[in-house]
């Protein structure tokens, strides 16, 4: 129990920040790809959705290439800026943000694609700037779909394991909840000790999915 609470807190902090970062990227990009047709759009879509199917260890590998002093371009980044995201909070946030990105991007894209273009065109005719249209017309109307994506993204970020292990590792008072549960399996001793951590993670996940599903039921499509 004494291990689980700090781990829960760490996971909550990482997942919240990761979802925020991923959302700030996913939502504008989703709007852009939903509105504009351009050569290679489907390819870009596929690339942005990759983390859904890519094993987390591959995600971790790419992040290591960025962060490790022997990686490429990690080596150049370290030599130029003296910075590496490995084993740092930012690294864990990065790993979680990458895996939750597609879960925010896909619903956002579909939400933007399904709103009535006429309303945006009217706003344009009335002289609104593209930024204004995005923030005052498109976003509010797509909010419902986007919110669902945010919840999914958050749940995924909470459960991130493989890439986090490779990029952030773990240690005393710096272990995320999924990693903590895994360490219980490595040690001699009862798996029962892992129960508090397991229940916490399952509980958070159930809560998030519950809110997600509740917000969709009763929604008239």
């Amino acid at each position, binding site marked *: 129990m004494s291990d689980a609470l700090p781990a829960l807190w760490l996971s909550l902090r990482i997942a919240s920040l990761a979802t925020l970062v991923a959302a700030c990227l996913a939502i504008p990009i989703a709007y852009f790809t939903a509105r504009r047709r351009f050569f290679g759009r489907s390819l870009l879509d596929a690339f942005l959705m990759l983390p859904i199917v890519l094993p987390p260890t591959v995600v971790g590998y790419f992040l290591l290439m960025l962060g*490790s002093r022997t990686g490429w371009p990690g080596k150049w980044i370290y030599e130029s800026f003296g910075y590496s995201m490995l*084993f740092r909070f930012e690294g864990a946030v990065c790993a979680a943000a990458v895996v939750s990105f597609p879960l925010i991007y896909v619903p956002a894209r579909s939400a933007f694609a399904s709103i009535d273009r006429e309303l945006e065109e009217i706003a344009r005719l009335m002289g609104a700037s593209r930024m204004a249209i995005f923030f005052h017309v498109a976003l509010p109307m797509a909010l419902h779909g986007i919110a669902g994506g945010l919840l999914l993204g958050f749940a995924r970020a909470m459960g991130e394991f493989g890439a986090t292990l490779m990029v952030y*590792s773990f*240690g005393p008072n710096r272990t995320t909840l999924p990693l903590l549960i895994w360490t219980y*399996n*490595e040690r*001699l001793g009862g798996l029962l000790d892992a129960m508090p951590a397991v229940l916490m993670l399952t509980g958070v996940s159930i809560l998030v999915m519950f809110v997600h599903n509740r917000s969709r039921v009763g929604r008239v499509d």
Partner: protein
Amino acid sequence: MKLLTSLALLLTLTHQTFGEDKTLDIAAAASLKESITEIAPRFESSEGVKLNLTFNASGTLAKQIEQGAPADIFISAAEEQIEELERAELVFDGSRTIIAGNELVLIAPPDSSIKSFDDLKSDMIKHIAIGQPDSVPAGQYAVQTFKSLGIFELIESKFLYGTNVRQVLEYIVRGDVDAGIVYSSDAKAAGDSVKLCATAPSNLHDPIVYTSVIIKTSDTPDLSKKFIEMLKDEESKSIIKSHGFTTATEPAELPPK
């Protein structure tokens, strides 16, 4: 269709013949990788068996054996895992044999300025990699050493855990971690890619001995005994020593400072 059936039949028959070959499953501490791998072929050819070698943290291996993973021989880097298996009644009585010893060293990337364990207290050292103490003996020995030196509390917040001692080594070889604790045999295996900064005096931690046991579920206990005997003969001893381990009374060939 007929061809397919006869092919399948042929495969099953030939598989049965291959099944008669004896195999020995050996689970050994990660640091023993090079040594055992070098000794294995001699046994394989003289006895006509195939050796399946698995190297990982002793704690992880012990846990797997407890859960039923197949193993004839288990070689641990610490007492604790052997005792745990003995408590679970998975060990043949009297099969405990010490085959090697080791020393604990502090290593760092080659360009590091660390000269002693005390330097770990410095703010320049952001992360220290050790094996996860709950499952990796090298990590347990590291914690004991730090506590004996009175620096444990000061540096605990910098620890990064590796899942086995070789992962700790890898972190240092990559240059991503400022310092790490591994066995001298691991430092030797890494050669020039790491800097050996200090060796822990052996009175600061429990004796590092590699103990081999025969697992009770083995159906080849006599063959297992033979392998363990081979691990103690002169040729094996010199191989083990050459990789930086100590054997009973002889000192290790330590990597040059």
